[in-house]
């Protein structure tokens, strides 16, 4: 058995899981994609255990441990999802923005939001774009550059897109 075959299949499975985590909106589908990524790692572990001929079977034992940890992760994750559904009536990741920056009101003047955002930041002199970039990256990807622009110039390009996307979502729901 060539080791390239399981390694390539594992890489493809991992990429499919990455796509699922990034592209899905339902939380349960994101959990499924995480399971796909864990299975890709398991396939790698088994293949390299067979290749190296480990006398302690560390690869397969670690695969068993990963399976058990994945089961625990799914249990706790689904409990969190159910608690979320109980409190918010949704499991949609795009609508869970409680930890993000104060969202601009839909179809409002953007300069007011930029001013309020600049006022709320604790240290306006120091550029700290990292936490907003992390929390906002689920919605529109090129945030770190445009967010800094939005701090000063009050024409954020992401807000218009977010407006039309939420309008489209409201039409669908």
């Amino acid at each position, binding site marked *: 058995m060539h080791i390239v075959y399981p390694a390539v299949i594992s890489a493809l499975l991992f990429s499919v*899981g990455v796509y*699922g985590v990034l592209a899905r909106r339902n939380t349960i589908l994101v*959990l*499924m*994609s995480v399971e796909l990524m864990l299975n890709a790692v398991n396939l790698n572990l088994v293949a390299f255990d067979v290749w190296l001929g480990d006398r302690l079977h560390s690869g397969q034992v670690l695969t068993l441990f990963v399976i058990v940890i994945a089961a*625990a992760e799914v249990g706790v994750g689904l*409990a969190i999802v159910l608690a979320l559904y109980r409190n918010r009536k949704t499991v949609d990741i795009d609508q869970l923005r409680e930890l993000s920056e104060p969202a601009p009101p839909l179809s409002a003047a953007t300069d007011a939001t930029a001013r309020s955002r600049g006022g709320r930041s604790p240290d306006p002199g120091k550029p700290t774009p990292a936490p907003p970039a992390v929390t906002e990256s689920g919605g529109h990807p090129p945030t770190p550059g445009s967010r800094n622009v939005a701090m000063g110039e009050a024409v954020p390009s992401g807000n218009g897109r977010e407006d039309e996307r939420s309008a489209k979502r409201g039409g669908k729901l």
Partner: protein
Amino acid sequence: MTEEVPSYLSPTGQEIVFLLLGAVAVGSALLVVTTRQLVHAALWLVVSFGALAGCYLVLTAEFVAWVQVLIYVGAVVVLMLFGIMLTRAPIGRSADLDSGNRVVAAGVALATAAILVTVVIDGFRTAYTPLTPGAGAASELGASVFSTWVLPFEALSVLLLAALIGAIVLSRTDIPGGSPEDQPGTSTSSPGDPAVPPGDRAVPPGGPAVPPGDPADQSGSSPSDRSGGH
């Protein structure tokens, strides 16, 4: 491990079976992340995990294959289906399962696949091992787990217990303490939460300590009786 590597152009029967199973696994994984129906995603996940169990069997890891079938196919997917059922997701075809950044996600996934496949093919082109059955049998793996890996095994059992208790604590709604001072903050800070009229709520059987006139607690502590709100 050996110096002479057999040609890629004359695959053995094991490799053909492995590649077919791998194609099934990757294809059904693609269907998991692209299908429009939530339940079908869970069922394609069963197919993917089953094909991966077949891959483990071909790689002579029998015990891991059966553990995969038991835990993943038997437990994890059933948990997922319960989660789909309990969150009252739309069962039929729904158009809003994908986020707005599908194109960027596809780009990132393709870049990841290209980089990983390139590196892996470049690094392990000459790696070859003959498959000898029996290396992954339950007796050898059990002896290895309970001789060398005892301490991680026990730590993992403690972790499983902690996860079990954590899931129970997260799922229960009638635990007194902690929830009354949490509920006003969450109920006022969520604008999309529909207001519940106080009349249509049945009193949960385990929560007599909650005063019935507290409106903040009523909006948060009854999960299963509010289906008419939306």
